[in-house]
């Protein structure tokens, strides 16, 4: 082993010196990617910050107003309500997704007949888009031509057809049901990779020591899955904080603007009211919240896997 290392190290160094110029070509290979990221990401990011300091209507001149947009945000109770609703939705939907996805992951992780079929079925809704899923459910939730209201009425469970989208509670929980249906399979696969990375001997050893299934789950499965859990959590939280499609397509922010999310409010300010500067300031707030969440969760991820 040592002899190979000893002979190959100088050889490699010589090759690198000779290839010194050729290495620069690498810059050429990554140039298209860098150009795209700069033009369509870095520049817009800088512009968001710049625009947030301006009064910037769609038509006409824009002018610098300093931090006025940010002062306006402090007084914008509808934005804070949207943010509060987004937080509420994120907490509820994340819990709901995990409550469904974890048992599914445990179920498909054990090899048995038809596991492939089960896994594929659970995962199918995850590959269709949020827009398709929202359109589909907006039909299922429709009071006259849909499925749920007429079905419960026909079965005699309700006295009349109930419009699920007319009041906050049923509308909100309908969205939760739809999102869980759409996303649980995705979270399930992530959790499954975590479960599969636990060495089976560990479980067997604990079983021989007389640990029951619940004790094994708490002492082995959960601690060893901490990183995977953190990742699934990041994806679920980030996705939910940015929720837009389902609230726009199924509820249009209603009933009575109670389901406007943060992104929805920014969309309204920027592209319905065309207050581009104010929208940019709102975007900065959202951006800071999201980056902060990501950093916190990345720290969770970085902690070494294992039992403390």
């Amino acid at each position, binding site marked *: 082993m040592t002899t190979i290392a000893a002979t190959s190290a100088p050889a490699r160094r010589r090759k*690198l010196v000779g290839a010194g110029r*050729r*290495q*620069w*070509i*690498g*810059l050429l*290979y*990554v140039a298209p*990617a860098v150009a*795209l*990221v700069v*033009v*369509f*990401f*870095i520049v*817009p*990011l800088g*512009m*968001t910050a710049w*625009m947030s300091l301006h009064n910037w209507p769609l038509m006409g001149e824009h002018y610098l107003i300093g931090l006025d947009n940010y002062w306006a945000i402090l007084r914008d109770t509808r934005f804070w309500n949207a943010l509060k609703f987004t937080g509420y939705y994120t907490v509820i939907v994340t819990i709901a997704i995990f409550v469904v996805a974890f048992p599914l992951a445990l*179920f498909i992780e054990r090899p048995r*007949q*038809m596991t492939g079929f*089960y896994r*594929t*079925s*659970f995962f*199918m*809704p995850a*590959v*269709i*888009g*949020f*827009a*398709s899923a929202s*359109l*589909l459910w*907006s*039909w299922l939730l429709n009071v006259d*031509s*849909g*499925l749920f209201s007429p079905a419960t009425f*026909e079965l005699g469970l309700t006295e009349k057809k109930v419009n699920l989208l007319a009041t906050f509670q049923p509308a909100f929980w309908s969205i939760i049901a739809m999102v869980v*249906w759409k996303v649980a*399979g995705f979270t399930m*696969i992530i959790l499954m*990779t975590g479960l599969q990375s636990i060495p089976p001997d560990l479980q067997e050893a604990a079983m021989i020591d007389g640990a029951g299934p619940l004790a094994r789950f708490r002492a082995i499965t959960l601690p060893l899955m901490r990183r995977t859990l953190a*990742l699934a959590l990041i994806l679920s939280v*980030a996705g939910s904080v*940015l929720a*837009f499609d389902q609230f726009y*397509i199924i509820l*249009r922010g209603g009933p009575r603007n109670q389901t406007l999310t943060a992104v929805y409010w*920014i969309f309204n300010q*920027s592209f319905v009211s065309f207050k581009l500067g104010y929208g940019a300031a709102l975007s900065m707030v*959202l951006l800071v919240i*999201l*980056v902060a969440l*990501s950093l916190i969760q990345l720290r969770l991820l970085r902690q070494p896997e294992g039992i403390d």
Partner: protein
Amino acid sequence: MAQARSRKRRIGMQIAEHSTGIVASLLFLAPIVWTVLSAFKPAQESRQPPLPPWPTTGFSVENYATLNTFGDGLWLPAQNSIYVSVMTVVLSVIVSVLAGYGFSRFRFPLKNLLFVVILSTIMIPFQSILTPIFLVLTKIGLHNTLTGLVCVYVTLQLPFSIFMMRNAFDAVPREIEEAARMDGANNVTMLLRVMLPLVWPGIVTIALFAFLGAWNEFLAALVLMTDQSKFTLPIMMTALQSGRFGAIDWGAVQAGVTVMMSPCLVLFLLLQRFYIRGLMAGAVK
């Protein structure tokens, strides 16, 4: 005796497990199956609640014909969606294969910084930079064009697909390259003839994610495509479902949702292992 009893118990357990599995599978599949079946009802029947889900008065493609009468028809937005998705796949594959190769096999100034910057864009929500993207597209003359939308989608794919491709190239042993270089292969033939066949599973994975991402994306298309002739399927269907073209025809919505779901489901069923691979690669790293 005891053996027989434990066998009976095991069979009982299996039955219980499989019934749970089948019921759960049906719950997840039901909305999709319900829509696909209902879309084939005659228009008259589509207005009624879908009980039962299958057509009772004969199969019909009337809903698809109706869908085709709204706005610019079905074919134009479908064409737009296909164009945007295919172009996103082609461009993001080309750009990330080149970048993945560059980041894996060369040393150049700022290499690590550039890599980290590209990867960290995944932390920043594109929803918060849509207005400036709109202005940038206007500035470079791609405002309200499908090509502009493609550029945005490709950029959004890059962190994931460059990460995937860099890892794929890293996994190719250096000896193979050195042998090819002895035979006089230059950088380009090396990449095309020697490396590509070895990293193609990675390419299939990023192509699949790029297609699904572009085909399903909603908010950017809604904001950036203001002209009806540039609508992609999700935007056109949402316009229809919001009553923009008059009374809402739920039969047409079912037909449209079927059209929107089908490519995703077919591609996923065909390329499932590549999809799961991509998820795992993201999850493990």
